[in-house]
């Protein structure tokens, strides 16, 4: 479903990714963990075409992104990026709902304007999504009137309204108050259980252990360990993974 090969990324002179490889199967749930600044967010953003990368390739459902330089992205590159985005929906740490649109408008904007869906159909879909995340009473609210948890759930619904093949969650609970983390995670859990291909960057270890088919540990731009959660958490092989996990789990 998602293949990453020999991904290299530089920030100026800094060489962040030195050839990352990752293969995600259809229906698989992969959780990315690692200390802040380890590159897991950047990795997700590369897959969604929000970050340029200098070498390697990313293939999402058959669509290929080759190394894209920020200064000279060609028309073909831009088109490929847009198609990849249609395949893989993204949820951000900061929600990024459109503040000038109501909840319903936030959800139907892209289906209507990008996919060309009939407005009625889009509204129907949106309402059933809102029902699923238990927010149908907020349909006419503005994002500013919602709690952080509610906003993030709407953001998930907004991404799902595009009917993506896969979902990318970039630390979806990191800017939430602790009491709201649960409601967001349970929505994600619901999706995972339906078999949606999912990549999640998170600091929620309990959640990772619960939902992940596979855990990938990032550190300083390197993938230092990857494997099923039971193995990784119980028996990390590398020193770096051990250090990280002991700090996190203690």
């Amino acid at each position, binding site marked *: 479903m998602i293949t990453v090969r020999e991904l290299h990324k530089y920030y100026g002179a800094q060489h962040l990714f030195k050839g990352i490889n990752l293969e995600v199967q259809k229906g698989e749930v992969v959780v990315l963990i690692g200390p802040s600044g380890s590159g897991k967010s950047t990795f997700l953003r590369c897959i*969604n*075409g*929000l970050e340029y990368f200098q070498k390697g390739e990313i293939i999402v459902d058959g669509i290929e992104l080759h190394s894209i330089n920020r200064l000279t992205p060609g028309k073909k590159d831009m088109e490929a990026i*847009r198609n990849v*985005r*249609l395949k893989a*929906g*993204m949820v*951000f740490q*900061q929600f*990024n*709902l*459109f*503040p*000038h649109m109501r909840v319903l408008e936030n959800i139907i*904007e*892209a289906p209507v*304007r*990008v*996919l060309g869906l009939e407005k009625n159909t889009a509204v129907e879909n949106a309402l059933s999504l809102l029902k699923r995340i238990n927010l149908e009473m907020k349909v006419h609210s*503005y994002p*500013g*009137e919602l709690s952080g948890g509610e906003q993030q759930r709407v*953001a998930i619904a*907004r*991404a799902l309204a*595009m009917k993506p093949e896969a979902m990318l969650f970039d630390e979806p609970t990191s800017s939430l108050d602790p009491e709201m983390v649960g409601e967001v995670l349970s929505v994600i859990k619901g999706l995972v259980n339906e078999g949606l291909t999912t990549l999640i960057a998170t600091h929620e270890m309990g959640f990772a252990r619960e939902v992940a088919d596979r855990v990938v540990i990032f550190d300083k731009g390197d993938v230092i360990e990857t494997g099923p959660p039971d193995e990784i958490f119980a028996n990390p092989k590398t020193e770096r993974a051990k250090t990280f996990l002991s700090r996190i789990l203690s």
Partner: protein
Amino acid sequence: MKRLLRILSLVTGLAILIYWATPSQFTESSIEKIKNRGYLLWGSDAEGGAPYVFPAPEEPSKLIGFEVDLAEAIARELGVKARQSQNAWDSLIPALERGDFDIAMNGLEITPQREKEILFSIPYYIYTEQLVVKKDEAVINDTTQLKGKKVGTLSGAVAQDILENLGGVDIKIYSGQAEPYEDLALGRLDAVLLDLPIAAYYGKPNPKLKYAGPPVGEGFYGIALRKEDGELKKEVDRILLKLLQTGELKQIYEKWDLWNETQEKLFLNLNKSISYTSIEESRKAPVYTFFPMLLKGAGLTIFISFVSMALAITLGLSLTIIRLYGKPPLSSLSTAYIELYRGTPLLIQLYILYYGLPNIGISLSPLVAAFLGLGMNYAAYEAEIYRAGIMSVPKGQMEAALSLGMTQNLALRRVILPQALRVATPGITNDFIALFKDSSLVSVIAMVELTKTYNILAASTLRFFELGLIVAFLYFVMSYPLSLLARRLEEKLKGSKK
């Protein structure tokens, strides 16, 4: 915002319609054109124009003056009506050449330099220069005693040449006719040398001033016509001769107290009878008589402001988007435009548009030049406001829109700009209020809007103070609702955001 844009675009449409509806001016000869049109368009400057052409003290919406009478007589002989076209005196000749009116008649002295550019009719008046001094002046009796004295005159007038030839005179140049006499009465000048008609209207009636010595110099006023209008010139000459022979011309001069022996060189008959519209009368006219003219000026001010703002908003938005999202050569061009327009005076831009472009064969109507001048200038300021607005939208908004598969254009239109405009609204409104006031600058390109109306009225009545207060009040009354509207918009937008 949407409604405002809709109104603006409607006004723009109307303006374009009016512009295109004005008849084009080729094919027919000038005389045919005038006859078909039904009126003779004559160019002159009513600002400080007494007694040549100026607003009637008792009815300021009506122009009077000896040249008004003369223009009406000429038009009558042509079988049409006369219509005055307001134009700054300095630029009457270029405006005539660009075809803004059929003839120019406004105390234009027949000089060899001018004859190189345009045709002159036979003279219709012999002017002399009259020295005016303070009533209690003891030293200066005539022009030979002006060495080291402060003497006022008009820019570009023949009197200026005479003073320069005298040598050693401290010449003070004025652009209005009333001001030098005011300054003389106040003691800021020692004397004023100007054409006799001007002295007769502004100097003689003033109890603090008197004539000094006999008129000096001598020259002819002629009606100016375009080089290619030889036929029209013949017709105008014929009419002037007729008016001269029937004595009608003389009657006009007598009516305005402009008759003197010098004119005998033009005329054979001589009768004395004097009636004079004194400047004192205009000082007494009730202030409401000025309202129709002022309101008309205000109307034009509003019209120009709205159309220019519509242009500024559209152009400014395009400039910003090109600057922020365009490819390198275009984006730097846009930046260059903004810097260039912000870094040069609007006044110069207007002059170049209106008086400069004809040099390279592009002639804009005053209205279009006003729209373009103000609109293109304010577009640069608008662009900066939009840019600040766009920068204030968090980066995540664009990323979220893109991650939903939107193109950059769609994201801009639906996500970024609506939020940016919200931030920019106060700035846009402030700009609009500023543009509103800056619209007074277009008076230099022959638009008689509110400020120009004020100049004309104040210069002919010398009621600078009360008219100034009224005009300031009018500007305030027009701009204050804009501030209120801006506040309401801001609150409304804030409400929807919470």
